[in-house]
């Protein structure tokens, strides 16, 4: 898998793409940790746009859980959006949809941040 991190004026956008399995999880975790630490410093919300994410296992879910906790501890919003159907199924079954803010698409996620 690969992930891009986009630092925008009013938010940080993380875009993972491909397969987030046990092998990819450690590298992705490091990238996400850095992005959230940066975002906390400038008090900017974090959006994880999963439009390109095809697969996630429990090792991958763990990254989302740690990210949500770091963001909360740093008092910045953390929103996950654009889950593909199979990834959404794993989110739903694991109960992560109840502890992490999941939005249907990027527009809804950004609207929530800007309050528009």
């Amino acid at each position: 898998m690969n992930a891009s991190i986009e630092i925008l004026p009013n938010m940080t956008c993380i875009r993972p793409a491909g397969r987030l399995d046990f092998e990819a999880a450690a590298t992705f975790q490091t990238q996400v940790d850095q992005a959230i630490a940066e975002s906390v410093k400038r008090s900017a919300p974090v959006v994880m746009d999963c439009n390109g994410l095809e697969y996630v296992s429990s090792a991958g879910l763990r990254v989302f859980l740690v990210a949500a906790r770091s963001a909360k501890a740093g008092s910045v919003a953390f929103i996950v959006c654009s889950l593909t159907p199979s990834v959404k199924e794993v989110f739903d079954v694991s109960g992560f949809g109840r502890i992490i803010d999941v939005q249907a698409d990027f527009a809804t996620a950004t609207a929530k941040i800007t309050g528009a």
Partner: protein
Amino acid sequence: MTHSTIVPATAPELETLRKSLGDFWLENHLPPGDLMTFELALEEIFINVVSYGVAQTPGTVVEMRLSLNDHVMSLVHIDQGFPFNPLEKELPDVNAALEDRPIGGLGIFLVEELMDTVSYQRHDNKNELHMSKRLSKPD
């Protein structure tokens, strides 16, 4: 239609098993939407076994048996590790709050939820985890 793949019990071999599963899927024209459930089950069980179950016994192998019967897909994961029934593990509280949510223990829970049946047998000094799911009908 059955298929067996045997690999050394080391983490990088997950790729070999996944390839074998993907080939089985294509050859039998199975619905792509169900593939991820089986890929996930394979990863969760295999990685758990190679990380803990056979860690004390180097040089062992894992066998993956695939079979398709009247649109019910079965995956049997067989390892030579010490007796270990993953289904006896305590399941995570999926209703816990963000702060209280345990980091581990989610893998086997996902497998149990996403498969129709999951059962464990100790057989011939091997651990066998049987998983099956009725595949969705093509549109």
